[in-house]
């Protein structure tokens, strides 16, 4: 059977997004061009910009790094890409995946920066799980990883991180927000670029329209070097049902994943009625809707003391709505537990020490 696109080569695969039988060169072409279109459509990069690629060693971020390098060369974006990796300290999982990222550094000829939880927080994920058990550990994962990426980019003087979130992740998030009633993020969760007043760094998802299955095929045919084990700490059970639902829907109608994203992009929240006495709520909502600065500034303002202290964590200086940022709240809980367990031991200074470490990091930037 001939490829339906070029009609001159043998069809080698059925494209998951459309079920079209196509050849490998055409597959690479459509896959890469769609990502390029996503980038161009929103002026994602500017020439001379330094951009960090959030690299986990997994398939998504490996394909992201490969495609960014390819497109950067093909279309002369003029972007300087750097690999940024987080070492959560998950034995067996992260050890191996970090090795992959180190090989990627050589393969793609990019700089690599590794930031570790132990160094940042005084806790590795393994230690956290040992302390709190297997429940809720993705809450820690999420909060810590987010800050860690910010701190990593701040260290590199970078204001823009691209992550490997794919179309399946986006569709799942849209459904999850509806099912959990997460209205705060309902209308923004499909945005290509996100930034908020509690993160100094602009984040974007160039693979937001790329199907997970196509990412797997691309990595496979291109023989990319990636690490294929999932995070060993499993996500919330509820997310599992949304994931299964999407897989079932995809079997019924292959376009479902982008159809859901299309719907998500059409979500508009009703304006909050301005009530007297609830002024603070309205103000907060306005701050969150602040547009992301598109390029231009290149030094993150995260830990710039000239900003004043109103919007910062009093413990670590990180941007935060509350007096103490989420990571520090979680850390306090963890450290309290550790202090209790080692009550007769020598490290009653655990909590203080961790905060010291954070302060030092903040100052050294």
């Amino acid at each position, binding site marked *: 059977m001939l490829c339906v696109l070029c009609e001159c080569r043998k069809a080698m695969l059925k494209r998951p997004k459309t079920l079209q039988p196509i050849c490998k060169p055409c597959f690479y072409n459509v896959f890469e061009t769609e990502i390029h279109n996503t980038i161009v459509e929103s002026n994602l990069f500017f020439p001379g910009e330094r951009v960090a690629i959030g690299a986990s060693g997994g398939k998504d971020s490996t394909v992201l790094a490969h495609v960014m390098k390819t497109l950067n060369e093909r279309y002369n974006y003029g972007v300087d890409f750097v690999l940024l990796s987080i070492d959560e300290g998950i034995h067996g999982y992260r050890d191996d995946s970090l090795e992959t990222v180190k090989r990627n550094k050589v393969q793609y000829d990019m700089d690599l920066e590794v930031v570790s939880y132990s160094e940042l927080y005084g806790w590795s994920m393994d230690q956290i799980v040992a302390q709190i058990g297997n429940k809720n550990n993705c809450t820690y994962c999420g909060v810590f990883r987010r800050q860690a990426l910010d701190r990593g980019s701040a260290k590199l003087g970078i204001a823009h991180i691209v992550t490997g979130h794919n179309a399946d992740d986006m569709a799942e998030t849209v459904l999850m927000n509806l099912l959990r009633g997460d209205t705060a993020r309902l209308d923004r969760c499909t945005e290509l670029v996100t930034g908020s007043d509690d993160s100094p760094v602009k984040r974007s998802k160039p693979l937001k329209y790329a199907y997970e299955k196509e990412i797997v095929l691309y990595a496979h045919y291109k023989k990319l070097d990636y690490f294929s084990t999932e995070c060993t700490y499993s996500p919330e059970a509820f997310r599992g049902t949304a994931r299964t639902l999407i897989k079932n829907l995809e079997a*019924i109608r292959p376009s479902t994943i982008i159809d859901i994203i299309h719907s998500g992009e059409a979500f508009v929240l009703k304006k909050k009625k301005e009530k007297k006495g609830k002024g603070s709520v309205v103000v907060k909502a306005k701050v969150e809707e602040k547009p992301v600065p598109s390029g231009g500034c290149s030094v993150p303002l995260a830990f710039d003391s000239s900003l004043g202290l109103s919007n910062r964590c009093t413990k670590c200086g990180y941007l935060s709505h509350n007096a103490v940022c989420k990571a520090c709240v979680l850390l306090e809980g963890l450290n309290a537990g550790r202090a209790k367990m080692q009550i007769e031991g020598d490290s009653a200074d655990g909590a203080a020490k961790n905060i010291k470490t954070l302060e030092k990091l903040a100052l050294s930037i």
Partner: protein
Amino acid sequence: MSAESTCRRCDGPTAIKTRQANFCQPCFITFIQQKQRKAMEGCKVLFARPGCVLPPAINILVPISFGQSSLALLDMAHAQLEEQAKTYENAAGFTLNAVFIDCSEADPLEKEPNQIISELEKRFAHAKFTCIPLSKAFEGASSVTLKHNRDYTSFVSGISEEPTSVQQLLSCIGTKSAREDIISVLQRHLIIEEAKKQNESLPTTVAWGHNATRLAELTLSLTIKGRGNRIHAQVLEHKNPKDSISGLPEIHPLNDVLSYEIPFYNSFRNVSDLAVDTVSKPSQVTKNLSIDQLMHQYFENIQTNFPSIASTVVRTAAKLDDPNAAKQGLTPCLICASPVDPNQSLAWLTNITVNEPAAPETEEEEELSKKAHMEKSQEKTGDADRHLPVPNLCYGCIITIRDTDSFTFPKRASKQDILDEFTL
């Protein structure tokens, strides 16, 4: 009897456990009916002066499917009328019109619609029943045939003064999901048309029988079908006709009742037997389900572990606004009539679903590619329809007709209207 097994309101025997409480039959009926009464609080008997009753000032149109949920709503509204008649000597606060869109030609029921309606008429004497065949959507309408290209662009390939038929329409739709999508578009259209007609003689409110679980399913289904922009119109209540796309008030009196509570209500009221199912049952194989059927299954399953999930989804959907409210220059979709920004959907789709081939690499590939090009350009010159422009379609409808090769749909407008609209 222990306190745990008696009704929390009257200590009578428990008939249903729900919302972490026990209810006896009468208390449960009251509990559910109160929700409906509140939604229809404008339906009270009006007096010119004490003792002098005015005629009803409002018409309630209840779309019925013969399913459990719309049957329950019909019973509640009817019970309200019975009570008003008893309290105020045959006075009524509203007129009650039940409208059934007969889709049995597409999806046969276990009983003949006429037979079901005559049974309903006996049980609900204060209500009027109207049965509208699905084919009414095709009456007096010319038809328009759409084809789609590989790159998802559709084009009008033919316009005919001859109406198309239900069978003809359905025969060109390849998948269950597309079929169910098109039928529900037509159903809704006919219900709103009927409501507008009734509205000419008495202000009419459409009271949909969707329960909370069904509304949650609808929210997810619309999202999944790329029709997220329709949630505001179809899932939310619009008590004020000004913010309703149909121009009529639309309410959901059962939006706080869960799907598993409905059969209890119906059985306590002795109306369960009046519900009728369709002949065809959902497939056992997930892959062979339609999107709506899959969503139904999903909520029925997840509801047992997360009982509040449906209300969460409905509450979340209620926070969504009409995404087109502030937009200008929108024109109605050729199929579902929802307002669309011309070309926006298509541009979005083609940007992220590229159909450009990679260039030929070898001489042999070059040859083959040239040959294919030649054949294609010959085809094109022989095809006069190619010159007809692209119709105005919303994203959801583009996705639906992509499941077909060619699609013939009733077009309300005349051939001349279509030519005027599409000729450049």
